């Protein structure tokens, strides 16, 4: 540096020796980089052994099950495993659309075998995912097939039910004969395949998922916004109040964490329902008439209010931890330099809270996107989120592949957002505490 007045501009003296080639060497002549790598290897190995138990735990309980679940979204062998002969025929005749005698024979033989093994229900369920109402077709055929099916098979099958001749059914069976399928993802995007196998929009009344994804992201965005609006001033107060008051306030902020989620959600029901406390107060104040009580629960409003409350601490805590580290002298400096308190806030204080805001927003958004209990309880039908549908597929329709596909898409969406955040703000700017 050429600043003659700067005593810090001292010349850096080289501690390690420089040889002719310019490579740094230690005192005994080894390349410095190599010596450094060796000395840090031990430390790395020890660190690895320290985290090994946790790593094993996470692998066993988290990574493996999730991987398996995701696998289910593209693999379902409910048909191919129990209808082996028909599956083999589909594979041998890739282009034939009209089933020949061999195909009918294979179908009859498979039905007979799987009826004996009592697996016909699984096969029916698999086809039922694609053509609702076909499960009974398989189970009743299975009942009749137990006594044996006599050739000619085509006529025998059509005798049982005209529907066996439906080309759409054959198209679906052909698709299901391959255990690997993208159909669940198509369905999750409200798409389906026509008889020729082209991807088309699902019928109007079956399009629910895209709408629900959009609603989930939109509501999560709103909830992130409301937690920010409510949480920012509180976090600021927490960070600037004297220790005793701020500790008390902090307890109030954390109080929701110490009460059961269910209790909190039910409390909102008591408050928000039409005959509830809030409506009573509004009526009493004369803001609304007794006949126009507001519908604030069992719809989107209910979901937004209850989830804002529940997720608020996740916004406040990262904001608080960042704000606490902002030295008050920055704002003072800005004021002494001539800035009004609003300018000092906008230009000096707020930008420094961004790492906390980013962390809080990301946390709240990701939690909200996957939230389940609260929307299920207070959301009514218009306040349901995508996770409620995932749960439905897990517990009611037992279409785990569909649940897995929806979950994978949710995960993908969140990862994309995370990536966007990284590009815009930088993940290293994230401060969680």
């Amino acid at each position, binding site marked *: 540096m050429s*600043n*003659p*007045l*700067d*005593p*810090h501009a001292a010349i850096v003296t080289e501690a390690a020796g420089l040889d002719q080639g310019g490579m740094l060497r230690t005192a005994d002549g080894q390349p410095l980089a190599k010596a450094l790598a060796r000395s840090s290897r031990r430390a790395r190995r020890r660190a690895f052994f320290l985290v090994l138990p946790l790593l094993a735990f996470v692998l066993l309980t988290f990574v493996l099950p999730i991987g398996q679940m995701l696998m289910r979204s593209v693999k379902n062998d409910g048909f191919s495993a129990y209808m082996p002969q028909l599956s083999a025929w589909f594979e041998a005749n890739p282009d034939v659309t009209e089933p020949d005698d061999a195909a009918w024979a294979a179908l009859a033989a498979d039905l007979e075998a799987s009826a004996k093994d009592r697996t016909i229900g699984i096969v029916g369920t698999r086809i039922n995912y694609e053509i609702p109402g076909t499960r009974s077709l398989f189970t009743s055929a299975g009942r009749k097939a137990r006594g044996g099916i006599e050739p000619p098979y085509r006529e025998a099958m059509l005798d049982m039910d005209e529907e066996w001749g439906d080309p759409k059914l054959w198209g679906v069976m052909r698709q299901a004969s391959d255990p690997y399928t993208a159909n669940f993802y198509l369905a999750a995007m409200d798409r389906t395949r026509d008889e020729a196998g082209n991807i088309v929009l699902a019928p109007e009344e079956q399009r629910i998922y895209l709408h629900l994804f959009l609603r989930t992201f939109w509501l999560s965005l709103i909830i992130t916004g409301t937690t920010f609006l409510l949480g920012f001033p509180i976090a600021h107060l927490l960070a600037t109040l004297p220790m005793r008051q701020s500790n008390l306030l902090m307890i109030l902020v954390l109080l929701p964490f110490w009460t059961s989620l269910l209790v909190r959600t039910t409390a909102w029901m008591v408050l928000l329902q039409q005959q509830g406390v809030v409506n009573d107060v509004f009526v009493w104040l004369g803001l609304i008439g007794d006949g126009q009580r507001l519908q604030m629960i069992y719809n989107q409003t209910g979901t937004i209010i209850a989830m804002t409350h529940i997720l608020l601490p996740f916004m406040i805590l990262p904001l608080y931890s960042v704000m606490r580290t902002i*030295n008050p*002298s*920055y704002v*003072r*400096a*800005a*004021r*002494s*330099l*001539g*800035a*009004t*308190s609003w*300018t*000092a806030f906008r*230009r*000096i204080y707020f*930008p*420094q809270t961004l790492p906390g805001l980013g962390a809080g927003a990301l946390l709240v958004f990701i939690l909200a996107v996957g939230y389940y209990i609260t929307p299920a309880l207070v959301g009514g039908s218009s306040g349901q989120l995508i996770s409620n549908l995932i749960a439905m597929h897990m517990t009611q329709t037992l279409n785990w592949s569909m649940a897995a596909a929806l979950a994978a898409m949710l995960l993908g969406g969140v990862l994309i957002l995370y990536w966007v955040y990284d590009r815009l703000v930088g993940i290293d700017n994230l401060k969680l505490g």
Partner: protein
Amino acid sequence: MTAQPGNDAFVVFDHVQKSYDGQTLVVKDLNLSIGKGEFLTMLGPSGSGKTTCLMMLAGFETATHGEILLDGKNINDVPPHKRGIGMVFQNYALFPHMTVGENLSFPLEVRGMSKSEREERVTRALDMVQMGKFKNRRPAQLSGGQQQRIALARALVFDPKLVLMDEPLGALDKQLREHMQFEIKALHDRLGITVVYVTHDQGEALTMSDRIAVFNDGRIQQLAPPPSLYEQPENSFVAGFIGENNALRGTIQELQGDKALVRLTNGELIDATAVNIRERGQETTVSIRPERVEFKPELMPRDAHTIEAKVRDVVYMGDILRARLCVAGQDDFVMKYRNTLGQVKLSPGQSIRIGWHPEDARALDPV
């Protein structure tokens, strides 16, 4: 002490009191008037209220009682951003999310200056502290001394008439600190600004200031230019706080005008100048600077009293020698003498007689 707002009084504290908790006064009746272009230092131990005074002047704390005048106008109700006072904070308070250039241009932006004028002023201010090349760096990429300069430039870039500095050099190492003291002083002389400077480093205060206000316990103990502060301390606190000092306890034996004869605790008599002594028989602490103590008879005034001293040890310090003596039962008495060719060698255990000019021994309040 009362403030005497002279013609050139630029800043006036008029009977200012400050309490944070409503129970104790942190600043007790502060009266101070600072002239235009003056370099005034507030010096005092930790917790004596220096920062509080500065914050009241800057507008970040309100005075509990009393008035603060700036350029003749009461500023008690003027918000900080309208006071036009430059301020350098102890931790510099450079905005971490802005570059050096943006930091400097901030005060100009909020004043609504045009872009070209801002550029020009920022460049000028950076050149003033020899930091022109660092315009695009962030504060975190600068050394402590460099940040210090930027903080200084930022406080000066909008041409304030008054600049406040709260221990601006506290975080720097000794060498850099001395260097920056010199630079700040040079800037002050060149720009003709008024500076109120807070420090608890007395060396810094002595080398830089036009006047020093020594704070203790929420009061100004003495307000004087550096030489008189050092040579004529007005009370025991100032004598003990500024520089090295010998304090001998005794009672006033005789008092004639400002000439006092003091009887020390072991019965010996010494001459002293009475400073805040009113009557005979009063207890006192006599303060003598170590370098004003003589031990060679030919250097002492002829009729002055001398007293017995026993050498305990002598420390060689290069330019001077520092002897620790046992005087009147106190064994922390220090005497400094020059290391000249053929200087008398003192050795531990040796008995000598020491004395001083009566003006150099100041009879102050007892501690």
